């Protein structure tokens, strides 16, 4: 073991889900490291495997799902082969999770306060009275007005934005080192989104919390994350610090995502979402998964397993275009020129 262990380390992770139609592969060989106090964003369009990655880290894959290969470590300790009782020590206590849909993620027949307090009773062995007071304090910290009354209410009496904040309170109740937030701002209006992100940033400076933020919104990434991993069809196609990624995207898919951002959009035409659909994860292609939609595709991309290329010490991409053999041969023009010539 090396001297320094990252807080979270995902190594060559493969997730399989057994279904009637066959084995779905929502995660196909992911490598990710997250340091304490850091915020890493995972972005990518719907269905690319973001949630499955998070659920694999929590050991909460759906029925039929399993970690087929690879490892997940927390401060060096293997998580993916834990027993149920081992998981109970990790979930809620060392990793808190905020789920994608706050409306359905709360138990409809239990008071919000109790849903927060029960973690404290279980992990911190507080008595219920004490735990309830802590729950109210947590809600208050999340800027939920009149927290004491709110704690006595049920999920259906909360608005979406308030539920989202209550869920963060719930996830942070036992002071975890890592927060996994799956699309914490979808379905919220912009002003609420901004408030929530500010709150997360505040909490982070206060407690040294690490955040794994899952989103499909690059604007949010720019707002809060230090590093970004771009996911496509179960793989991380590019990983870089936020600035580098926005300034010099190395992967055509990242470039396409950036182009579809409203503020980068030039001219009067409609926003250019990337045309086409991702491949079937039941039978992932042998070559590049982005081949069908890639404006810069080479012939070898269709069949040859794509290499991972180190662009710099902190940036890497999964693309043939950046491979030294291709770049050195002069067979292809640089990315920008090629895209320009097409329009």
């Amino acid at each position, binding site marked *: 073991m090396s001297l320094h262990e990252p807080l979270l380390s995902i190594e060559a992770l493969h997730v399989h889900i057994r279904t009637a139609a066959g084995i779905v592969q929502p995660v196909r060989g992911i490598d990710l490291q997250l340091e304490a106090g850091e915020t890493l964003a995972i972005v990518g369009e719907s269905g690319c495997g973001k949630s499955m990655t998070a659920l694999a880290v*929590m050991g*909460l894959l759906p029925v039929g799902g399993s970690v087929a290969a690879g490892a997940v470590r927390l401060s060096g300790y293997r998580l993916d082969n834990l027993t*149920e009782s081992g*998981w*109970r*020590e*990790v*979930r*809620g*206590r060392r990793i808190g*999770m905020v*789920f994608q*849909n706050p409306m*359905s*993620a*709360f*138990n*409809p*027949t*239990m*008071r919000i306060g109790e849903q927060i307090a*029960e*973690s404290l009773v*279980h*992990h911190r062995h507080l008595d219920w009275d004490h735990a309830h007071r802590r729950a109210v304090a947590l809600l208050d910290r999340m800027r939920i007005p009149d927290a004491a009354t709110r704690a006595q*209410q*049920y999920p*259906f*009496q909360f608005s979406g934005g308030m539920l989202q904040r209550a*869920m963060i309170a*719930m*996830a942070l109740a036992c002071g975890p080192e890592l927060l996994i937030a799956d699309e914490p701002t979808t379905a919220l209006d912009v002003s609420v989104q901004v408030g929530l992100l500010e709150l997360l940033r505040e909490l982070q400076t206060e407690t040294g919390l690490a955040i794994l933020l899952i989103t499909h919104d690059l604007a949010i990434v720019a707002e809060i994350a230090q590093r970004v991993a771009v996911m496509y069809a179960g793989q991380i196609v590019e990983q870089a610090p936020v600035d580098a990624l926005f300034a010099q995207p190395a992967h055509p898919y990242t470039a396409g995502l950036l182009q579809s951002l409203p503020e980068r959009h030039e001219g009067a035409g409609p926003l250019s979402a990337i045309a086409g659909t991702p491949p079937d994860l039941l039978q992932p292609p042998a070559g590049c998964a982005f081949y069908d939609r890639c404006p810069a595709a080479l012939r070898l991309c269709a069949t040859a397993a794509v290499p991972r290329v180190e662009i710099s010490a902190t940036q890497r991409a999964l693309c043939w275009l950046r491979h030294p053999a291709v770049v050195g041969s002069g067979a292809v023009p640089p990315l920008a020129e090629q895209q320009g010539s097409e329009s």
Partner: protein
Amino acid sequence: MTGFLLRRLLSSLITIWFIATATFFVMHAVPGDPLSNEKAVNPEIRRHLEARYGLDQPVLTQYGIFLRNMATGDFGISFTQQNRRVNDIIREHFPVSALLGVVALVIATLGALLFGALSAQFRDRWPDRTIMLSVIFAISVPSFVLAALAQWGILSLNKAAGFTVLPVAGWGSWRHLIVPAVVLGLGTMAYMTRLMRSSMLEVAQADYLRTARAKGLGSLRIFVFHHMRNALLPVVTVLGPAIAAVTTGGFVVELIFSIPGLGRYFVQAVQQLDYTVIMGTTVFYGAFLVLMVMLVDILYGLIDPRIRVGK
């Protein structure tokens, strides 16, 4: 909540009035009248009797008298049992039916929760398959066949044991009660078991159950407060129909097991065209069921905060 209760009470009263009215006019529509059963009644006596029971009055006047009597809780005097007031018949025999029904319902509910949860937990494995097969059997076999089977079973048991382990029929102790109660509750238990199973399976897929696991809670707490509690809601909604099923099922079971409950008297009254008893017990049963359904609604409100707090 108070408004909800008042509205519920009002609609219950209207329903009871409707049941009473329907009973009255249906009884008037059946051919013959209460006295035509007696052979060759002397016309004078007949007139006398008609006057006594108000049968010489116009229908609407009779209806008015009937409603007034019902409202004051006076169900009249039996035609076939000398000098017995219908109120007394109800007072004497309803507790027997109620005891049988309550025990049947408790057995049915507890059994359904247990078997439903078990079969969901062991989905598609042998406990599930065994339970679901029994459920189909219990739902499809009518209760009088079940009752006959049970009596045959008791007889064989007693013969094998050489003494009376359980009485075949009659009333008086818990040993008389237990088999009829199981027979009476079995269909309801089967129906509720199936509901409980699908409800447990549905909640097992719910996002909030995953949230509970993501908090690292103990499995008992997750099972009781997150899984069971929510899975119970649909089961509580069928308690009303379940009470109705057990009440009406009691008619047959009381008859077969010779249990002196109100159900047996009701069936007898129908056979003998005992008008006052039929009308009195029908209205009584109707009111009882309406009241029970109302109580179930209130119970549901207590369990589901979306109804309790929302209203």
